[in-house]
């Protein structure tokens, strides 16, 4: 769960001190401890609901981080996999009476297939073209869900059973699942495959020349991202008990991407921090009523101006200038 890498690169003394603190192994465990202890501080239904939403959002961001952050594939339709996961779980549990947990293998299978089906033709494209195709894919999934009768059409699916009883237990379950997912994504990023992803991101042609099978490597990133998104979808369905196409709009894809960019592309702790900021900030600003989204936008612009590299950027020995 930590960046692990030693600090490099020039900077002010304060900057170096901050970076050293951020890069030390403390971050992940402290974050987990904070998440686990939070309900002891505040356990109102409201707080639990937004903390659970934030945790699900962290999972989404860490999944997209594999695709965008590690591998450098700009995906504007990430919410499609989130929707595929949520709908698969929702349909199987409400129409066939399966417990939600039993739908997880099906969700993984469906998202892998979706990842391959979409990735196989589109990953031959690069940069802008890939972005356009994924954007279209996101919309296709949403509109299809709104028109099929098995997905409940525009009103969606309701009465989805929960995973566990009570919001506190569900929050803890979510935190555990999300922590495993975040740690898993981080480990993947540091594996042999992860190094190949970073290589593809830095220079695809050079990677190809060095013997990296770029197409297969990119597809692996895409499928891994899809599975992460799908599992986040199961948690989302369990939390809300009702899903409808309105929850899977382009705006959500954009917000997840924003969390990844804001936090620092390719940096696991950064993406977690970015996701927490993006999901909690609107709630913190809720009392501003009409100015809520104005303030949200201004704050995001300020962050981008002050820390263009992200809140908590990735530093690696390989990338040092």
């Amino acid at each position: 769960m930590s960046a692990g890498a030693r600090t490099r690169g020039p900077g002010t003394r304060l900057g170096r001190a901050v970076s050293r603190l951020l890069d030390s192994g403390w971050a992940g465990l402290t974050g987990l401890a904070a998440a686990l202890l939070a309900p002891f501080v505040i356990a109102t239904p409201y707080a639990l609901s937004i903390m659970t939403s934030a945790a699900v959002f962290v999972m989404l961001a860490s999944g997209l981080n594999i695709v965008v952050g590690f591998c450098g594939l700009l995906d504007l339709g990430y919410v499609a996999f989130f929707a595929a996961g949520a709908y698969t779980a929702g349909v199987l549990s409400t129409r066939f009476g399966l417990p939600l947990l039993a739908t997880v293998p099906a969700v993984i299978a469906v998202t892998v297939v979706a990842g391959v089906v979409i990735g196989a033709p589109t990953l031959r494209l690069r940069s802008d073209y890939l972005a356009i195709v994924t954007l279209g894919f996101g919309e296709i999934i949403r509109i299809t869900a709104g028109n099929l009768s098995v997905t409940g059409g525009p009103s969606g699916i309701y009465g989805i059973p929960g995973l566990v009883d009570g919001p506190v237990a569900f929050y803890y379950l979510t935190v555990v699942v999300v922590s495993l997912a975040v740690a898993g994504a981080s480990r993947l990023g540091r594996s042999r495959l992860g190094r190949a992803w970073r290589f593809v991101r830095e220079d695809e042609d050079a990677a190809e020349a060095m013997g990296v099978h770029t197409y297969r490597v990119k597809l692996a990133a895409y499928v891994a991202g899809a599975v992460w998104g799908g599992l986040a979808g199961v948690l989302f369905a369990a939390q809300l008990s009702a899903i409808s196409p309105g929850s899977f709009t382009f705006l959500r894809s954009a917000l997840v991407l924003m969390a990844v960019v804001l936090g620092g592309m390719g940096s696991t702790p950064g993406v977690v921090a970015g996701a927490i900021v993006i999901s909690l900030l609107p709630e913190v600003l809720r009392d501003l009523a009409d100015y809520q989204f104005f303030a949200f936008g201004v704050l995001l612009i300020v962050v981008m101006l002050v820390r263009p590299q992200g809140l908590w950027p990735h530093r690696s020995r390989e990338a040092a200038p």
Partner: protein
Amino acid sequence: MGESRLATIWSLAAAVTILTAGCGQGLLGGGQEGGDQGPIALGMLVPQSGSEAAVGPYMRNAAQFAVDEINGKGGVLGRKLELKVADDACDAQTAVAGAGKLVTEGVVVSVGGYCSGATLPTLPVFGKAGIPMIIPAANSQELVDQHLGHVFLINGTGTQQAAAAMAWITKQGATKVALMHDNTSYSKDIAVRTKKLLDEPGGPETAILEAVTPKESDYSANITNVLGAKPDFVYWTGYFQEGGLITRQLRQAGYKDAIMVGDGSVSGKLAEIAGPEAAEGVYATMTQTPETLQGAGNWIEAYTKKFGSPPGPYSNQSYDAVRLAAEALKNAGSTDGTKVIAALEAINGFPMFSGPLKFTADHTLSAGGFQILVIRSGRFVLQDALK
């Protein structure tokens, strides 16, 4: 990660926990806050941001109007009422967070709910907290079909609107009816239910059931499709933006017979978008609005004076939801959810804008109160009360 470091983290965390547990909102804090003193809080979830943000102020102001009125007369159970509003942005996740916020703030009755899609996931949140819900606007059949004891709908349902539409279509002597909807839950529900009624043997037939994509500017492809089926009556069940465009483009395409729109299209904007000539004579199925109510003039005047703008869609239902909540609290003699639900079920003949209230076994209105409006000189006026 060394042993000592881990130990430091955990001991620090434990210290923080112990310090903050005293605040009383954590797992160890115990007990509900809020007592039997102070104001009784009513919660209202309405869209204040997002695509449906325009309707939020109409509902919020009307509810506040009722709260002030009741407080002016001494409140309920010897306590004042207080309205707590939260934004649902017409989005499921925001709505669930908002509902959680209202529950945390100790509301005893929920009087909000506009978008059906955002209201559905809030039902279990209020249900688990034992808080009765009086839903002023959202009226999708899914809200009824779950048969939840704490959910009461005071807007007419899709079934009732379809029945009103059918009554008027038959009365007009139409033979082939084109139904158009925008694929949202609410709109499709009305269109499909109307089609079921049309498909019964005898009477008018369905010419075509056409779904359009909302937020476009050119519907000529849909209109060519619809007119190809040669209807003599077109019923649009979506919202006013598309309704205005469809009306204008139908007239431009040379369609001369009747056009009718659903309650989501009842807005002065429809005539502005369609243009005064095209909009003239367009019918609408609508629950009673302040403008069409007999003797509501004083209410509209007082409302306009207080908020600086006239009431709008669902203002009257929101106003009634608060009054109904106050009545139920009074009859129950308590803020206890179960007693309030029993009081709501027992209500008989409570005067509301939609007529005397008595809930059916499904917790819906026994009569939808739908009537037929028509546009005359750009304004919706009453055509037929369908009594």
